[in-house]
């Protein structure tokens, strides 16, 4: 396996699009329940936890970019092959792919669950999974540029939902956010840890990095993407805390969706129906990138044609989703995925950094030795 990746001019993208890739992956189903998860840990100071989480992610992102800069033009698979050798590298790469697969599956099943709770209690999950996976297959077949396009276009097409938060935001009870700093430091960090689950998704940087044309400009869009996601989570967290009372908030599974229930217009009411259905447009880019990551990884590691992986994984996921119709099953699965995401997304880059640096030093020494 080559450590460096050669991206053709057809697959190269401007760094500007990284913003959309990363933020669409971060904003998925997680945000629907984020406020109650964070609130459970750090109560009225949840917004501080969100900000702490943001700082942690920025720190991790710098580490990731630093790791990537050590190489010419590579992705995580190349780095792992270089650091751990072919065999162990492949194993770790497979772990990454399985993680992506699990995230993909949890996103799909959670969305189906939401649709079943809010709109169609009797619809078969199989049908919804088929719909979603057909969209995913169709767009992944278009290649990397189309995938980036999906992220970009759907990002723009879905952000009108934010305007629907204005009405609940006007009813915020600010006393719910007081007293400020009532939570202890441990509680704040626990809240931050709860937030980082929903902020997962930036690890895609390890995959798409070789496809970026102007690498010197990578930093800004990446940080802006995480910043934007944080802003949106902050908005939803603050609105939810202000709008719901603490007991209500903790008992709600998807408080963000409940916020839209009070919005009415003279020609349409109950915007929550529209939003839940429209959320499909939020998660499609999400699962499209994940699916691309899986097919791309399989090709890098095992030289399996991307189409083959795509078809097989899609069919398997549709079948598997048909059996995941128990709410608690889905919930615990998502929980496990989020927990493992913490290790893959946050801890792993920290562990990788010293190894990469050691390897580099060793190589330089070797090179110098040869020179002499």
């Amino acid at each position: 396996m080559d450590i460096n990746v050669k991206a053709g001019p057809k697959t190269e993208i401007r760094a500007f699009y990284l913003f959309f890739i990363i933020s669409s992956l971060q904003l998925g189903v997680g945000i629907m329940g984020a406020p109650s998860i964070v609130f459970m840990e750090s109560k009225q100071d949840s917004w501080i936890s969100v900000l702490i989480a943001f700082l942690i992610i920025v720190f991790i992102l710098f580490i990731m970019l630093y790791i990537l800069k050590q190489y010419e033009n590579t992705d995580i698979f190349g780095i792992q092959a270089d650091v751990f050798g072919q065999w162990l590298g492949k194993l770790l790469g497979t772990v990454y792919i399985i993680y992506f697969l699990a995230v993909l599956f949890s996103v799909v099943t959670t969305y189906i669950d939401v649709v079943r709770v809010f709109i169609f209690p009797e619809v078969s999950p199989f049908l919804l999974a088929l719909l979603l996976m057909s969209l995913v297959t169709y767009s992944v077949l278009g290649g990397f540029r189309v995938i980036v396009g999906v992220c970009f276009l759907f990002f723009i097409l879905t952000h009108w939902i934010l305007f629907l938060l204005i009405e609940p935001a006007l009813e915020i009870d600010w006393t719910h956010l007081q007293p400020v700093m009532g939570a202890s430091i441990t509680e704040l960090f626990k809240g931050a840890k709860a937030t980082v689950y929903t902020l997962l998704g930036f690890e895609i940087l390890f995959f798409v990095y070789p496809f970026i044309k102007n690498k010197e400009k990578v930093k800004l869009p990446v940080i802006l993407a995480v910043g934007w996601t944080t802003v949106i989570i902050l908005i939803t967290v603050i609105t939810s805390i202000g709008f719901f009372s603490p007991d209500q908030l903790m008992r709600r599974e998807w408080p963000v969706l409940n916020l839209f229930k009070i919005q009415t217009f003279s020609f349409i009411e109950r915007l929550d129906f529209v939003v839940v259905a429209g959320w499909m447009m939020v998660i499609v880019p999400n699962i499209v990138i994940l699916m691309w990551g899986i097919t791309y990884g399989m090709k890098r590691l095992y030289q399996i044609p991307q189409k083959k992986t795509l078809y097989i994984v899609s069919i398997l996921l549709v079948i598997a989703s048909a059996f995941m119709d128990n709410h608690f099953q889905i919930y615990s699965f998502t929980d496990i995925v989020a927990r493992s995401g913490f290790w893959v997304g946050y801890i792993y880059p920290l562990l990788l950094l010293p190894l990469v640096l050691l390897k580099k030093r060793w190589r330089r020494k070797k090179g110098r030795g040869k020179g002499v």
Partner: protein
Amino acid sequence: MRKRRKQESSSLFPIKIDQFEKLLKSKFENNPDLSFSVYEHENKKAAVFYISYLVDLEKAEEFLLNLLLTMQKEWTNASIQNEIPLISGDATINKLEDILEKILLGTAFIYIEGEDSVVSYMMPNKEKRALTKAETESVVIGPQIAFTESLVTNLNVIRWSIRSTDLVMEKILLGKETIHEVRLIYLKSVANETDVNTMRERLKTLEVNSIDDSSVLAQYIEDSSASIFPQFYLTELPDRFAYTITQGRVGVIVENSPTAIIAPSTFLSFFESTEDLYMRWNTGSFLRILRFLSVFIAIFLTPMYVAAVTYHYEIIPSDLLISIGQSRAGVPFPPIFEALFLELMIELLREAGARLPTKVGQTIGIVGGVVVGTAAVQAGITSNILIIFITISALASFTAPSYLMGTTIRVLRFPMIILAGILGIVGIIFGICFLAIHLLKLTSLGRPYLTPIYPFQMKDLNKVLFRLPPNFQWRRFLSFQPKDTSRYDKTKAKKKKDIDE
């Protein structure tokens, strides 16, 4: 067949006139139109032949026969060319297939017995209609003329619109069995070379027996023929054509076709009308935004009704709920069939109106729309609220300046209605997602169909989504990477004056 002819294509001449006549007549079996007359002069026999209705007969008589028969000198190819000095005179043709090809283009030939080639004079008589107003893309202000079926006339009109030596009109012959002339038109100093090359490549490598019209040619050379969206803009307006050519795109016109192909075209360009340019920038922007809005209305209004009435009565405000409910009460069909039925009726009206003569067509529209609509509501087959929705969406679908795109939008409604009837609002969103992904995947002449939305090009937005005052319009459409990116000097355009200056 063609191959065999090629093998015997050595020079035919010299040949006896009788023999030649027989040979020619055999090629035009059962065709009484070949005029072949033989004359004698100073012991030399000459044959003059042409197809009578393809040749300008007056000209042929006056300048050809008259001069030939009153000639004093001996008849030879050289002397004839000397004595009958028409520009199109040519004495090099000596192959039968060349003669056959030329004779079909309206050439008159003179053959002097014993010479080893024929003298040809091109004097075609091509019937054509006069330039008329545009029908499918009618505009209120601005130039009104439309292309005609005559290639020469079209070239003439284009040349007069773009008076520049930069304008290239490459000639390409297409068709295996019947040949059509196709012109590839672009501005040398502006058009992107890749685009020109791609287009030329596609035209030259195209293997078809014949081309019926430019719209058929467009379908042959499109990027994705499975798609429902047209990928090349077909226009009958010379001003629109000229405008896009000067912006650096590539145009193709086909003999015998009154529509020109413009490539590459973006999705959004199908909603631009030249009128937006002739209007003031703010009103032009308004009209353009109105057209985008109408696309959404055309595609999503009826499906939204179907979804709400079939599955989501919760989202209807209570006042509206009562009126919708009451009007639905007597309807015996489920909403999806009701909507499909009415949509179908509108399509029938449109189709009937288009096929019938204009005057009858209008009557049919009124009869169908008013009488049948009212009767349908009174009979309780449909709800009157749906009639309003259907009419609005039909109106909206006709606002697209491109007839092809308008048809696409109308057809798209049907799958959307079905999706809404099956899966409610989730189905509609699925449809939107699918359409968006499909549009992202499409290309036009290898360039993304959705540009400048994706790939995003901020500076081009004022060309497609809205318009800005002229001093902001100094750039060309950058997404297509023209060679020359600016239209005029921006510093002069952006100069600002102080008060009282």
